[in-house]
């Protein structure tokens, strides 16, 4: 087994401990191992008399965990260039903090000699953590504080040098504690969701730079080569992972989701965007695309290198925007100028903001403003109307610096809408802004949003795959019946992927059986398909136990009123609402939960020791 680096920023201490094989066997690594550690921290706090509900997400008691898994950095393990970040609590939601990112940082962290980094406490002055060839050191980051993401990455890459060097950092948004600030790595890659950049900012931890060339162990090399080759061939020959994603990236979804009537438009007032074609993946490929960029060890290469060649939103070189970013910054705000969407997305990367929460919060502000709910003096001249490209771009940088109306936007849509008297206009679950699929048109994803532990999230259980894309089989998106079992298995399997740590896109071509074989060969354990799904279920349940401690239960497993009560006004899902209660009842039964809380019997069955 490998090593875990435990850093205490208050005491400025660095301790190394062994990764526990017992824990890894039950929780794999990545997200699963981090969830286990978070639970242990909460138990320690409880023993010391601190209720989990009293832990301030932006205080020194919060703990930030950067985690790789058994697949990370293993050459030939398909698309294993990722890492997972977790925190006890998210400043945006109050629930668990959780995000995942690609690029090079994950494998290079492992090559530097560590499986995971656990960050406790808070520094009084800016610092960065350097890990070079197994040696870790906290260094002064005063000269980096205030720098944007690109400058920070470049300066630390220059300073450390060497091969296999990568930087994860925050930009001004994280320093200024914007609640939707993210952790960026390798310039344009983001551990985007739940405001973990603000947690890093609250600890005055500007960056982590990793470098090294330690080999990642593989227990059964011959067997692994055989399984790896079969899986890589399957991905190459799969029309989605072999052609669709490499050719168009994720933005190709804009037109199909819009055709299905599920592309939220104008803060989810409808699911049909009349201008979808203008911001589509096809348009991005025809007009903006320069080249592709792959994460470490990935045969797919869905990343887009783009530019806006001229005009007011000129960007000489950028990456993305992804489907979710185009939707949030474009469709939800009704901005049809893709130049502006690319620029707004570029600013999100430069300043370190989650484009989903950013775009959704701007869209909520636009609706509030058009309904006359925001006093003119609060806006300070920012003309937040649907479709206003210039206001979109300005709102992003204002949020990062909390300048003018940006100080309200930086709170996220839930608090923003509460301040202006219309909490129902925040299109969020548990305070996390939902992504780009309207559950009135795609029912299963609505159940997933409602029950996702980190809040409104699509990649907790991506049922859009069977509901719209027909993978692994086609099911009807506008029917609620039978969706609960799909949501459960997708959520459980996704926990396995995020604990491996691997790219979720592999699952368009690979199933649980493939993962069981890959993981068995790498670890030397004999894991079956059923066993890894049980591990996934265990992780999901322990994560649920954690959020229960913060006060989240069945009352919070819900959706915004608009999706439950306002019928879809047009398109193929016209007249539909989300039949959440019906699906949720079936889901809780399958989960062995009562009112969103796992029963003792379920926890015992999953061998979760509390």
């Amino acid at each position, binding site marked *: 087994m490998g090593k875990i680096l435990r850093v205490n920023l208050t005491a400025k201490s660095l301790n190394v401990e062994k990764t526990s094989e017992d824990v890894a066997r039950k929780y794999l690594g990545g997200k699963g191992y981090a969830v286990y550690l978070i639970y242990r921290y909460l138990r320690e706090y409880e023993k010391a008399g601190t209720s989990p509900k009293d832990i301030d997400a932006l205080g020194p008691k919060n703990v930030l965990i950067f985690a790789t898994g058994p697949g990370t950095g293993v050459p030939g393990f398909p698309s294993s260039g990722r890492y997972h970040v977790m925190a006890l609590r998210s400043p945006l939601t109050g629930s668990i903090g959780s995000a995942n990112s690609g690029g090079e940082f994950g494998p290079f962290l492992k090559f530097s000699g560590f499986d995971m980094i656990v960050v406790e406490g808070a520094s009084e002055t800016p610092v960065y953590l350097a890990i070079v060839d197994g040696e870790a050191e906290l260094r002064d980051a005063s000269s980096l504080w205030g720098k944007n993401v690109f400058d920070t990455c470049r300066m630390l890459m220059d300073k450390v040098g060497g091969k296999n060097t990568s930087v994860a950092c925050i930009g001004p948004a994280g320093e200024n504690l914007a609640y939707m600030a993210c952790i960026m790595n390798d310039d344009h890659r983001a551990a985007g969701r739940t405001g973990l950049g603000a947690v890093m900012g609250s600890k005055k931890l500007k960056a982590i730079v990793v470098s090294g060339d330690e080999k990642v162990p593989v227990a059964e090399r011959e067997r692994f080569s055989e399984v790896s080759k079969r899986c890589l061939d399957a991905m190459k020959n799969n029309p989605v992972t072999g*052609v669709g*994603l490499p050719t168009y990236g994720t933005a*190709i979804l804009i037109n199909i989701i819009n055709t299905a009537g599920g592309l939220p438009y104008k803060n989810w007032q409808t699911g049909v965007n009349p201008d979808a074609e203008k911001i589509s993946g*096809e348009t991005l490929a025809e007009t903006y695309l320069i080249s592709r960029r792959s994460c470490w060890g990935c045969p797919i290469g869905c990343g887009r290198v783009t530019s806006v060649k001229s005009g007011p939103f000129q960007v000489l070189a950028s990456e993305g925007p992804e489907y*979710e970013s185009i939707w949030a910054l474009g469709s939800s705000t009704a901005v049809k100028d893709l130049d502006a969407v690319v620029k707004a997305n570029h600013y999100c990367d430069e300043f370190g903001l989650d484009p989903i929460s950013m775009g959704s919060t701007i869209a909520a502000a636009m609706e509030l403003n058009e309904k006359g709910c925001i006093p003119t003096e609060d806006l300070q001249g920012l003309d937040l109307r649907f479709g206003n490209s210039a206001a979109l771009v300005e709102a992003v940088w204002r949020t990062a610096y909390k300048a003018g109306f940006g100080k309200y936007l930086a709170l996220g849509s839930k608090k923003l809408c509460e301040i202006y008297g219309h909490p129902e206009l925040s299109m969020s679950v548990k305070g996390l802004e939902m992504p780009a699929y309207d559950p009135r048109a795609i029912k299963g994803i609505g159940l997933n949003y409602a029950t996702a532990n980190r809040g409104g999230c699509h*990649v907790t259980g991506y049922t859009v795959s069977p509901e719209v894309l*027909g993978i692994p089989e086609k099911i009807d998106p*506008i029917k609620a019946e039978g969706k609960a079992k799909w949501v459960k298995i997708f959520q459980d399997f996704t926990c396995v992927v995020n604990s491996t740590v691997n790219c979720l896109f592999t699952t368009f071509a690979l199933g649980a059986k493939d993962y069981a074989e890959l993981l068995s060969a790498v670890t030397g354990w004999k894991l079956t398909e059923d066993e890894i799904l049980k591990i996934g279920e265990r992780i999901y349940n322990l994560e649920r136990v954690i959020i229960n401690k913060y006060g989240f239960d069945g009352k919070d497993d819900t959706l915004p009123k608009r999706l439950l009560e306002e019928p879809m006004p047009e398109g*193929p899902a016209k007249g539909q609402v989300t039949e959440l209660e019906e699906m949720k009842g079936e889901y809780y039964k399958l989960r062995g939960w009562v009112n969103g809380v796992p029963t003792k019997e379920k926890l015992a069955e999953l061998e979760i020791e509390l």
Partner: protein
Amino acid sequence: METTLTTVSVKILLFATLRSKYKTRELTVACNGTLLSMIESAAKLLGPEFIDDVYDRKKGKARNDMIIMVNGRNIKDLEGEITLKDNDVVAIFPPLAGG
């Protein structure tokens, strides 16, 4: 009694690799209301390869990997034989995904 299929006008939208291959975003065709007749009419404009790109002749139905939506509803989710009506919009996507 014989059923007479009337001629209908259908708009076809092409996406992703189909759009780039045929250099066509949309076209309107006249057909007798069956999916095959629509595809054959489109093939007269796009070229004969179009039929095999979207239709499985052996099975006598649309290719399983294609995503074909009539007025936004996937034909796999519609019950019974597909009968196209005048002014229907048929969107055809190759296998794709994202997230």
